[in-house]
């Protein structure tokens, strides 16, 4: 009922608002949505991820068991991701706020509770190691971007929102440490090119557009390595509940 409530409110209020398009995401962190995510049943999520139908792959086919071994590194690892963030992405796929044919189809018939269950399941998993080319270098300027940002381009430090260890934060800021290098780069390219638009108030799009391609590449390597340093088998769940 929660989905319908959100969409109904949006539809009712929209004509009364001033000229505007659809919101970048229908997910709002109301008490109900928050509670839904918190009550997500990880054991149900564990079962859902292996379910395959005739039209739709199982999650594990592309993301691996527990979202820890994607078949290609332009599929994201999901293991250890902040539950609220995972839920939001799944929900956005379902609403069409985020476009990817495979993902839109994959979640089409899942209920909110099932999405929350998946999110809880992935959140419980330890962050896996990801492949990083040993030759790849990360310059000092890029590390400075992580902790100090760039005032000339009005770029805030990545760490200020994503955390000192890239572990994400309340409410739905994603963990970015330990993410696949290629997926990280593709995501930033999608934000910069307005192909991905489910970040509210365009906050990631603004930053992605301001960063250079080299910086994005190096940041991807930095965060992949950061995740590898930290992954020791224990859960990397951020402070979000």
């Amino acid at each position, binding site marked *: 009922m929660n989905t319908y409530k959100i969409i109904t409110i949006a539809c009712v209020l929209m004509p009364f608002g001033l000229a505007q398009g659809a919101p970048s995401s229908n997910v709002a962190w109301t*008490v109900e949505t928050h509670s839904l995510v918190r009550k997500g049943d990880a054991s149900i999520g564990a079962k859902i991820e292996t379910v395959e139908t005739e039209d739709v792959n199982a999650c594990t086919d592309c993301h691996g068991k527990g979202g820890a071994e994607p078949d290609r590194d332009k599929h994201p690892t999901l293991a250890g991701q902040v539950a609220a963030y995972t839920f939001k992405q799944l929900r956005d796929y379902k609403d069409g706020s985020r476009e990817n044919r495979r993902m839109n189809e994959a979640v089409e018939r899942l209920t909110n509770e099932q999405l929350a269950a998946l999110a809880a399941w992935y959140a419980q998993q330890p962050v896996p190691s990801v492949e990083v080319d040993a030759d790849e270098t990360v310059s000092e300027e890029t590390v400075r971007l992580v902790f100090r940002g760039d005032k000339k381009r009005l770029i805030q430090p990545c760490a200020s929102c994503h955390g000192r260890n890239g572990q994400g934060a*309340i409410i739905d800021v994603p963990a970015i440490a330990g993410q696949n290098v290629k997926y990280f780069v593709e995501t930033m390219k999608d934000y910069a090119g307005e192909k991905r638009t489910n970040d509210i108030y365009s906050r990631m799009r603004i930053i992605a557009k301001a960063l250079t391609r080299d910086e994005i590449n190096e940041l991807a390597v930095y965060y992949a390595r950061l995740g590898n340093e930290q992954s020791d088998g224990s859960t990397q769940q951020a*402070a979000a509940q």
Partner: protein
Amino acid sequence: MYDKSKSVALANLWVAFAAFFVAIILGLYQVMNRSGLFPELESHELYFASVSTHGVLMGFVLTTFFIMGFGYYTATTTLKRPLWNKGLAWVAFLVALSGTVMAAIPLLTGKASILYTFYPPLMAHPMFYIGATLLVVGSWIWCLEMIMSVITWRRDNPGKVVPLAMYGTTANAIMWLWTSAGVAIEMLFQLIPWSLGLMDTIDPGLARTLFSWTLHAIVYFWLFPAYIAMYTILPKMAGGRLFSDEMGRVAFIMLLVLSVPIGFHHLYMDPQQSAGFKFLHMLGTFGVAIPTLLTGFTVLASLEGAGRLRGGQGLFGWITALNWKEPMVVAGMLALFMLIAGGWGGMINASYSMNTLVHNTQWVTGHFHLIFAGTTVIMYLAVAYHLWPKLTGRRLASRGMAVFQLWLWMIGMMVLTMPWHVLGLLGQPRRISSTPYDSPLVQQWDPHELAMIVGGAILLFSALLFVLNLLLSHAARKLDSVSDDDWAIAVYPPMSVPKSMNGFVLWNGILTVWMIVAYGIPIVQLLILDAPGSMPWGY
């Protein structure tokens, strides 16, 4: 001889000054961080954990424990009888101390980096809120002690005038009960249930309003003992008499009534309160400057009397004639000097529409350090020097070092706070750990940023000398006798005073009505407005 409860007084004072010392070290870390000279030290996590701990230790721990310790000494030696209930005094101490420890753990481990104002919807570990509440509860038990001490003394001494120092201490206790109610309500009905997950959302507008109820008058809770010392210890230590006992009472009464219902000047820029109530609070805020201005006159007049008794001639000759070797005299004069500087700054803050220019800038930080860390704390240090021999039975390790330390404290405070006032006027925000703005203002700010570390270093050195002096005094030579009657006598000691100046019934009544109007109505309005609440956020 009667039990003066000196050990419980000393215990409270030691906790106060231990907290003070830890907080000073944190303060030095902060200015080192800001100076830009130590890039390896720079860390937002450490900085904001430090600011939060520093603020709590200085604003809640140093003050509350000092006030309790000084209060016990005052109650026993002015009323010349034991405490109403010594066991309860120890209970108060233990409750407050355990609360402090409970809050210190999350503070020091970065789980409560929400500053000493702890505004939601930033959320800390519940232990922080519970610990802080216990500290306040401990202080309430002290309030009960003070009030009952006076009530039982009056019952046994009908018609006699309550000694001024005790009258002031009791006024402070009553005022503290009135004002701490605000933060207690915020804790018990909002922050604690919310942080424990029993409430989903919280209204930050209501929380700020409740906190403002405490936030202004708490600085008068801190200031009261400084004024009490200025009225009832300083004149005697200067070698003179108190110019007017009655005016002292008038000042204490005005502070009791006017400190509490004026908190909205902390909310001038807030969107949850309307202009009308902000204006009403502004009137009271200017009103509360009056007892301070009266105090300035009475205390300076007392000092002038003392100076002239020592042979001072001419318009200003009495100043140099004062006994500048006496720590209490030095502190008193320096405190008044800083009060004048900081007080005028306060008038700007109080000025309704002018507040826009200084709100939440570094000006505010400069103001409250000058007036609290300066005027108030320097008097705390002097009271400590004064009480130590009385509480330990041993001489103070070094009066010379005490005098030197007090001068350093004032100098360090001026060096620290004057640049902050300028930075605020130049638009620098407060509560930042660095200045990464792409703005020409940043270059204008730089030289003042550097000045901070000089002030901080001087203050650390001064604080070190203070704590060292107290520590060494415990091993100093024993005194043959110790006087517990070093309370100042007025030029005209009153044989009797009107009932309203010997008790508080009338003033409590006035304050009740005023609080219902100034806070009751706005809070009810907020409850009716029922703003949609906020979820918890981390930092």
